[in-house]
């Protein structure tokens, strides 16, 4: 008899705990068939596992593919809002898709935790929306971070920059700003567009040969990395630095000799030396059996963790109380400290990271090592590099 009572008590206790625990359903809207989208999703899941393991709150994810296209993303968001009835959505990776989501988001008024969408066109679209938390830096932050690096290179003797930019939204967005700012720093600039994925750069690079650039700066995608590295050598361009800014780098590129000395910008590397980053890398390896290079993975992870914090503090599933707590969150992340402030333009109220998360790395002896800014550098920058 006593045993029965004990069991009954235990059951009741557990049930009580479960009731006290705040459970929230969160929609995730990502292009899961792309590399970045998949990494982001993994990161979010990892973060949610950790939050749920804490026991105080419980997050349930409803994952939908945004298809990386407006025509699939809009109905997908509608489904999250009306069928799954979530109040919180994590998503918004690509700028174009996120822009298309601005209408329905304003209609259904969710708490929107935006993981990517750096274009300031998106910032404009969400400027009057107060449940918009943008974690990723804006494009002007990216420009600022890169320019800081260029200033350093100018002081090291670089004078001429050739810019290769892909002619889609990613490459074209900041190009005018880059050109003006670089010229203001004293550089001579020649910019040439290209079609990403075409693989043929010899002609453009031949054209640039007459310009004799010190720095070859390319803004494109992972598919362009190897062809540019190889064909720069093939035409004998011999710049002092190849500096690339793709959202991701190809798998296996570090093992390729051609990658040596190529520099790039990222928000995060697995080798970044801070506690949160190390923790993330360990957890990720345990759950997925591999290390990821994609900074969207820790970005998703950070979003989930910060949401967990806000939920715990709010002790409620009300989206406005959660938003209020999220606005107050201060935490260490793999990228460094996170807290929300109004954006630099003042258009949106909750901006997470800024240019300070960007770091410059260089492929050196088969891996990527931070080389700039100096306080985060693991190695000195090899300049001039050997191409």
């Amino acid at each position, binding site marked *: 008899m006593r045993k029965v009572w004990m069991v009954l008590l235990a059951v009741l206790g557990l049930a009580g705990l479960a009731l006290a625990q705040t459970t929230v359903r969160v929609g995730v809207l990502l292009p899961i068939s792309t590399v970045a989208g*998949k990494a982001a999703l993994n990161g979010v899941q990892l973060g949610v596992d950790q939050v749920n393991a804490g026991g105080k709150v419980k997050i349930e994810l409803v994952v939908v593919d945004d298809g990386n296209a407006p025509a699939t993303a809009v109905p997908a968001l509608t489904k999250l809002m009306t069928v799954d009835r979530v109040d919180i959505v994590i998503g918004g990776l690509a700028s174009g898709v996120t822009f298309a989501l601005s209408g329905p988001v304003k209609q259904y008024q969710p708490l929107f935790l935006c993981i990517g969408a750096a274009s300031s066109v998106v910032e404009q679209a969400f400027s009057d929306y107060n449940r918009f938390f943008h974690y990723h830096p804006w494009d002007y932050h990216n420009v600022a971070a890169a320019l800081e690096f260029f200033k350093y290179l100018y002081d090291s003797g670089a004078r001429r920059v050739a810019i290769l930019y892909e002619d889609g939204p990613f490459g074209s967005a900041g190009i005018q700003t880059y050109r003006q700012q670089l010229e203001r720093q004293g550089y001579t600039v020649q910019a040439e567009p290209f079609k990403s994925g075409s*693989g043929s750069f010899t002609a453009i690079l031949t054209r640039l040969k007459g310009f004799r650039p010190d720095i070859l700066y390319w803004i494109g995608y992972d598919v362009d990395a190897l*062809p540019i590295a190889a064909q720069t050598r093939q035409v004998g361009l011999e710049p002092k630095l190849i500096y690339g800014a793709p959202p991701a780098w190809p798998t296996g590129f570090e093992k390729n000799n051609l990658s040596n000395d190529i520099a790039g910008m990222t928000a995060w590397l697995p080798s970044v030396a801070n506690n949160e980053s190390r923790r993330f890398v360990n957890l990720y390896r345990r759950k997925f059996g591999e290390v990821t290079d994609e900074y969207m993975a820790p970005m998703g992870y950070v979003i989930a963790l910060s949401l967990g914090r806000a939920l715990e503090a709010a002790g409620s599933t009300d989206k406005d109380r959660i938003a209020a707590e999220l606005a107050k969150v201060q935490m260490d992340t793999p990228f460094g400290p996170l807290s929300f402030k109004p954006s630099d333009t003042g258009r949106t109220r909750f901006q997470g990271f800024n240019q300070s998360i960007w770091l410059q790395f260089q492929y050196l002896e088969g891996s990527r090592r931070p080389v700039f800014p100096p306080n985060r550098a693991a190695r000195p920058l090899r300049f001039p590099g050997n191409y």
Partner: protein
Amino acid sequence: MELLLQTLINGILAAGIYALVASGLALAVGVVGIVNFAHGEFTMIGAFIAYLLFVGTGLDPFLSLGLAALVLFGVGAITYLGLIRPVLAAPELNQMLLTFGLSVALQNIALLLFGADTRVVSTSYQGATLSLGGLSFGVPPLLAFGLSVVILGALYGFLDRTRLGLAVRAVAQNRLAPGLLGIETQRVYLLAFGLSAALAGVAGVMLSVMLYASPTVGFAYTLKAFAIIVMAGLGNLRGVVPAAIILALAEALVSTYLPGGGGWVEAVFFLVIFVALTWRSWRAA
């Protein structure tokens, strides 16, 4: 002058890989009469074969050419027997939908297996260069060009000098003749489609060296290959190389001489085709 020479060289070297992808497609379209939307996916399989062998055994991609060609010949033959043969007599549009479905399925199977990642191999010669009197020749494009010439030479030799080759050409030039689908024709079709896939495989291996391997690697080149074979004239296997050279030269010239020309490359490529097709059609009147 040197710049012009270099530009011409760049264009002609680029034409090698165009011609290779396009020749495979020309066999499928010109001989079998199938608009094969899955040709790019065959290329992709070739690229992955090279990549996986490289990662697994460290084999140099150029050494996997033979294997890739063989595997893809098999894939092509199976595709022909299982899917293409049943729709040979169906309207062209039905065949298009069929190969489009196959293309979607293959691409997404690759996506499931390997993810969307862009993967690169590393060889000692990817950035290697030959210099000749101020002109430079990239080694991989040169290898690809040389290999294209050899393979296409062998293909033309086969078409010109062997009985089976003659049969292939006869079918290509006389596809709509009634009473086809005899046993001989069936064999020619099987052979041509298999060869078409094998050429795609070879092109894929080269793409893995020069570009990368990923589920979508075949797309860009296949689109251009379609344009090239149409410009050459369907069924005109010999016209493929000149058409590829003209288009690659146009691209190289625009990129090198037009400020910001890199953004106009595609437009010029397709404009040349548009003008060539329409002009030819009006002149023939």
